[in-house]
């Protein structure tokens, strides 16, 4: 026990006495470890943000029907209840789904596309309120900019029709309850309750909309058919199955299937490349750390022999270089983390915005730092052990005389 505490004390004294040499070892270790950490940080950051982009971007999960069909409420409801469907909402005929918007703050009248929305719409993720009736609307960023309106403003929405040889126009005051994210769409879109979309179609068809007091023919059929729908899969891996099922039903659809598999394979290939680089890096790092620590033990042979002469047992002597290697490993690791964090900051705050990434380009988790520490300490201890055992094996007299 006395020997153990003495060895710890002595190894530390020697280490701090030779601070220049120790500093060089620490620098050497950090200069190999830090770039590896940055490389890993980039790999982790890029790959995970790519995957996240894929998963999060609704466009990649969207399944768009080609042409128009006849889908009733039951059909829509059946798909809404599927586990692999995140969101589905009917669309009306494209021609009937346009509306003219006029704000007090802008002179121009904007023709906007009407899209039905509801709770859970991936395009409007993060917004707190959804249109609940005819009089509420969420504008796309581009529409809001052109109308110069913000959430809370009331604007005039109007629809026109050519019916029975005369032009009709109806007006409706709607409240802008929120503005959609720029990423949702670049078009001029008014997200509205499905009822308003249906009302718009009825009006354009010259039919009566009782709720809003819009005149027209009374509808004879209660059964509604929608020509199209807006469908989002739960995740990108659900897209393929959904597309298959829809096509089996005779619904021709478009989806980013090819793109998804491309990015998935890029992800896999990138991971392989990064792993190869990382393995080669880790191997090189192990050898360089091992070689320098081993050389250091050889350099200290005489001092180690003196310790044996004074009465330290061989087993304790081995601890001396092992402990010093641990100091180097721990300090080098800390320094490498500092260097890494500095680069992480630079990359994420200066490089990432230039690449139009809104997510961190480079980052590591706490467990990655711990893995790096484990690798460093293991290699350091192994190298020092090999050197230390060699030093402890030679007869003390030889170690004393060799120099």
């Amino acid at each position, binding site marked *: 026990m006395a*020997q153990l505490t003495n060895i710890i004390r002595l190894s530390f004294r020697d280490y701090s006495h030779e601070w220049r040499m120790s500093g060089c070892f620490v620098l050497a270790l950090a200069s190999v470890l830090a770039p590896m950490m940055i490389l890993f940080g980039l790999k982790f950051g890029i790959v995970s943000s790519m995957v996240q982009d894929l998963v999060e971007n609704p466009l990649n999960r969207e399944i768009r029907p080609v042409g128009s069909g006849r889908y009733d409420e039951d059909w829509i409801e059946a798909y809404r209840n599927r586990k692999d469907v995140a969101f589905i909402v009917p669309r009306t005929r494209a021609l009937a789904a346009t509306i003219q918007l006029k704000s007090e703050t802008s002179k121009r009248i904007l023709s906007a596309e009407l899209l039905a929305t509801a709770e859970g719409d991936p395009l409007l993720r993060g917004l707190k309120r959804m249109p609940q009736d005819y009089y509420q609307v969420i504008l796309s960023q581009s529409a809001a900019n052109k109308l110069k309106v913000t959430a809370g403003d009331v604007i005039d929405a109007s629809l026109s029709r050519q019916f029975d040889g005369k032009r009709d126009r109806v007006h409706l005051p709607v409240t802008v309850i929120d503005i959609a994210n720029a990423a949702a769409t670049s078009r001029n879109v008014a997200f509205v309750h499905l009822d308003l979309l249906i009302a718009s179609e009825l009006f354009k068809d010259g039919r009566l909309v009782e709720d809003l007091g819009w005149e027209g023919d009374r509808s004879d059929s209660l059964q509604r058919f929608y020509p199209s729908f807006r469908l989002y899969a739960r995740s990108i891996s659900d897209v393929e199955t959904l597309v298959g099922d829809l096509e089996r039903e005779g619904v021709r659809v478009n989806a980013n299937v090819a793109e998804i598999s491309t990015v998935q394979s890029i992800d896999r290939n990138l991971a392989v490349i990064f792993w190869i680089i990382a393995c080669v890096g880790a191997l090189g790092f192990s050898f360089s750390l091992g070689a320098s620590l081993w050389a250091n033990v050889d350099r200290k042979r005489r001092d180690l022999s*003196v310790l044996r*002469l*004074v009465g330290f*047992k*061989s087993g304790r002597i081995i601890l001396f270089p092992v402990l010093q290697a641990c100091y180097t490993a721990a300090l080098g690791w800390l320094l490498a983390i500092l260097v890494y964090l500095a680069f992480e900051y630079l990359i994420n705050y200066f490089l990432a915005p230039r690449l139009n990434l809104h997510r961190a380009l480079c980052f590591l988790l706490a467990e990655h730092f711990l893995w790096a520490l484990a690798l460093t300490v293991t290699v350091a201890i192994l190298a020092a052990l090999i050197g230390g055992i060699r030093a402890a094996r030679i007869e*003390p007299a030889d170690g*004393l005389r060799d120099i």
Partner: protein
Amino acid sequence: MTVIYSLKNVVKERLIDGVGFRLVVPRIQINARENIALIGHSGCGKSTLLDLLALILRPDQDEEFGLHPVDGNSHDIGRLWQRDRQGVLSQIRKQHIGYVMQSGGLLPYLTVRENIELPRRLLGLPDDDSIKSLSRVLGIDRQLDKLPGLLSAGERQRAAFARALSHRPSILIADEPTSALDPITAQKIMAVVMEVIRGLKITLITASHDWAHVYRMELRTLKQEAEAVEGGKVYQSRFVD
């Protein structure tokens, strides 16, 4: 007289492909409180014999290699080496032997005081004023808090003696402790050391140098005979009583 070392036909070889050096000790007995000087030119095996006696070198052959410290049990050193009982050997070394190297061998990262304290710490001996008095006698009491690198060569050897003596060993082995010093400093240091040795009743075994003749009356010399054997390939050295 108590015998502390008794060696019979102890052999240590340093041969490469049958060429090299062989040390043969036909018979040596060293008594307690006897002071021994090994005499011979350099390369004749003085250091080798001292290392064998200091238990830091493994003999190749021995008929008898006994150590009987005044204040401890007897040990069959030859058998301990054969059984590779290095732990026991280092324990005996730690307890009974002080060793002064040619170059001092002070640890550069410890102060002089810590260097001197080290053998005591390893034995778990209490801190008393023995270090202070020892260093005062050896004339290094004002250098205790310096690192060895700041000391002169003479001061370093004085400190090395202090370290070798701090745990009160019964045997002090010194391998040409003054060979790096000028003759006047060497004589001064050895005068002090001889005084301490007498006071502490220690057995001194040393490789001799210029100052040896000064203490001729107090030192028993072991003489060396050397010859080339095995067709001139092996230089064989014999120390005889």
